[in-house]
């Protein structure tokens, strides 16, 4: 129980009035970052750096500084869900899957319920991940080292297989949409041998199609255009906006314990690997849809469809901090910036951090517990406020949303080209939706395409083109096998139905 006493010490350091105050400041800033697609964790750290130097000069100030920075991270994780649910605009990439059922819920007038479910699940996911970090970090660090290119590829394959094969509609359109996503992901510089692909001599295409721009366009703008057909108003304006919704939703949530546990497990796994929060959310949504008794109704505003991706995303986002601390490899861009923050205090992330900087590490872990509690309090008390945004008249909120989208698209690469691209994706999203081309597989292919290809080709380089490398040990073989089973699952399920029909 060495960990427990270290943790208690960490709590003792973290729990001062001043630190708690900074915790709330950090979380609030983080929520703002999460809500606005134009801001990321990097911006948060940028503004707080000077402040942390002032803080660090006071006794115990380093801990305060870390708390402040990491609470931005928690806040951003919480905040991403808000615009996803209210306007179908994912504030952060990992909240794309939250739109699938969160937005339909808001349209039904259940915005507050969806928000409460999202925030609570986020908290649960993070809590599970922090507990794992607290007690299992050395084991996990060793486990993460087992991941080479074949293992990474198998995990991406698993994400795909968990998600596809379940979309309704015409199979050919699903194939077309997904391949378009893959092709768009391939645009730009080929990372394996530095050749420009599919740019046709246009330098604007150099950096490829950014996930966030495509998503803002396809989901956000596309949805606004679709809504417009039915009149100049948003649906779901009569959302209930009192605090009782929170309690009522909480009463309902324990029913979905199985989904929560599964999603937390998926999230922790993907965070440690590190596959990232975005694939984790997709994978978890896909699994929930297959395994839930209400799976058929997913996409129409099921609360489980909000719980699954949010739990997984937050669990992954939290456990991603672990590889960063022990291996020095950041699991997400925000984690990378946090890592930059550590360097400035003379802390070198890596295997020695847990040995040499015990106080720091346990202070950080304690602040993970406390920061998430602070985050939950902040966002839950704001649920009525967020839901009330839907009551703002259309003539005001519609242009403001478009302005936010434009800013978000611009800031990705500081380029106007991307803003035009976002509009183009918006029109594409509108037409695709009306013609029953599924958008989710396209987006998933776009976010995972280049990573999957890179790890596949790294694996092929290493094995000299031998495909059996994907079954060369229990780990990679197990994951690949599971992926293949999931891929053919609909076929198996079909057989079983046929068999029972014959009987």
């Amino acid at each position, binding site marked *: 129980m060495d960990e427990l006493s270290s943790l208690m010490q960490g709590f003792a350091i973290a729990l001062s009035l001043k630190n708690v105050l900074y915790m709330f400041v950090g979380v609030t800033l983080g929520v703002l970052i999460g809500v606005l697609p134009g801001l990321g964790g990097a911006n948060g750290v940028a503004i707080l750096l000077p402040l942390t130097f002032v803080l660090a000069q006071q006794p115990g100030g380093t801990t305060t500084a870390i708390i402040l920075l990491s609470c931005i991270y928690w806040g951003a994780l919480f905040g991403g869900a808000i615009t996803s649910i209210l306007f179908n605009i994912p504030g952060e990439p990992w909240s794309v899957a939250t739109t699938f059922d969160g937005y339909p819920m808001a349209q039904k007038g259940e915005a507050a319920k969806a928000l409460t479910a999202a925030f609570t699940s986020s908290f649960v996911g993070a809590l599970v991940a922090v507990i794992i970090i607290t007690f299992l970090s050395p084991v996990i660090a060793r486990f993460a080292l087992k991941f080479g290119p074949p293992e990474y590829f198998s995990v991406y394959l698993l994400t795909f297989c968990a998600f596809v094969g379940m979309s309704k509609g015409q199979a050919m359109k699903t194939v077309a949409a997904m391949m378009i996503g893959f092709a768009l992901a391939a645009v730009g510089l080929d990372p394996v041998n530095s*050749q420009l692909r599919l740019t046709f001599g246009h330098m604007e295409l150099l950096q490829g199609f950014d996930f966030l721009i495509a998503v803002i366009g396809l989901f956000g703008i596309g949805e606004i255009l679709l809504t417009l057909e039915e009149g100049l108003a948003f649906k779901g304006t009569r959302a209930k906006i009192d605090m009782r919704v929170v309690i009522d939703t909480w009463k309902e949530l324990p029913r979905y314990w199985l989904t929560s546990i599964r999603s937390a497990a998926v999230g922790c796994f993907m965070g440690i690997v590190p596959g990232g929060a975005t694939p984790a959310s997709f994978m978890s949504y896909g699994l929930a849809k297959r395994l839930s008794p209400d799976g058929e109704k997913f996409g129409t505003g099921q609360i489980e469809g909000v719980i699954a991706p949010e739990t997984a995303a937050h669990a992954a986002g939290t456990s991603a901090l672990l590889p960063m601390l022990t291996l020095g490899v*950041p699991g997400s861009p925000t984690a*990378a*910036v946090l890592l930059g923050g550590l360097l400035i205090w*003379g802390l070198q992330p*890596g295997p020695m951090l847990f040995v040499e900087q015990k106080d720091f590490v346990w202070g950080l872990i304690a602040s993970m517990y406390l920061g998430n509690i602070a985050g939950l309090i902040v966002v839950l008390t704001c649920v009525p406020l967020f839901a009330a945004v839907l009551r703002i008249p259309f003539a005001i909120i519609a242009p403001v949303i478009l302005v936010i989208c434009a800013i978000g698209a611009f800031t990705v690469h500081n380029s106007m080209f991307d803003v035009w691209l976002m509009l183009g994706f918006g029109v594409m999203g509108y037409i695709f939706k009306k013609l029953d081309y599924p958008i989710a597989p396209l987006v998933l292919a776009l976010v995972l395409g280049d990573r999957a290809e890179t790890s596949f080709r790294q694996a092929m380089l290493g094995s000299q083109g031998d495909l059996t490398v994907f079954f060369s040990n229990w780990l990679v073989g197990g994951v690949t096998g599971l992926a293949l089973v999931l891929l053919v699952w609909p076929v198996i399920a079909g057989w079983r139905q046929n068999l029972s029909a014959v009987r």
Partner: protein
Amino acid sequence: MRRCKSLLALFCLGLASMGMAAHAQTWEPTRTVEFIVPAGTGGGADQMARLVDAIIKKHGLMKQSMVVVNKGGGAGAEGFLEIKNAKNDPHKIIITLSNLFTTPHATGIPFNWKEMTPVAMMALDQFVLWVNAETPYKSAKEYVDAVKVAGFHKFKMGGTGSKQEDQIITVGLERQTGIKFTYIPYKGGGEVATQLVGKHINSTVNNPIEAVSQWRAGQLRPLCVFDDERMPYKVKVTGDMSWNDIPTCKQVGVDLDYLMLRGIFMPPGVTDAQRSYYIEVIKKVRETPEWKDFMEKGAFNQTFMVGDPFRAWLAKEDQRHFDLMKESGFLLKK
């Protein structure tokens, strides 16, 4: 608010013109300076840029604020093209790595160091040959012999990016010793070091800062440094070794020296006064204890250069990269 700002701006303008009268040569930023990193977050260049930014903020070396922006698309071309196209803009600076030379040669993306304004060389980054500490190779010679015995493509060398510094060094090593690795490109130095610890690859040519933590933890072992001289840092890093104890690769029969530029560039067309301003800031940064500590931790070569010597160095390095890449077959096939 707006009026306030504009009044303030007018006031500043007035001050500036007064200052101008006194010293014709001084210039200072009038708004937030963008510090561009032509690589992703977490890598060596990114770490250094963020450290410089933090040092400037901590010691108040600049009146205006500075913001670090990552523009790593297209092997760094995204960042370099932005600088190249921001003609006369003194509020943008960029930190360089070797992709300043390699990316245009390998991809044909049109930019060149001559199309930007060189400001200063801050330091040079070393390259060290690393193996997993659990493998039996105690010296570079033992390792090279083992690779030779195993045959072509049996050993895997991991590195950052494709047709960039790591792969150039790998090919150089191969040509001098008559061995052949399978080179596997990864996204960043941290990932490469972790892959070596997990034994997914056999060796790397990581920069010291990218692998020092794993070295100290007893997970990696340095074999030799790709330079003519040993690194000067004699403080023990692990229980029994300092950076200075690592032999040069020349001492073990590989005559290959390669150093990576960590320098600062500005857009074309900026004035000498604007360039001097940043040189002065960098000079002050180099005086701080945080910088010195970082230099030692990462065993950097602390050469500092500005002006004509720097330009001459750049011209020589550009030609050398062209030659090395030509020999390795890395140039864009036309």
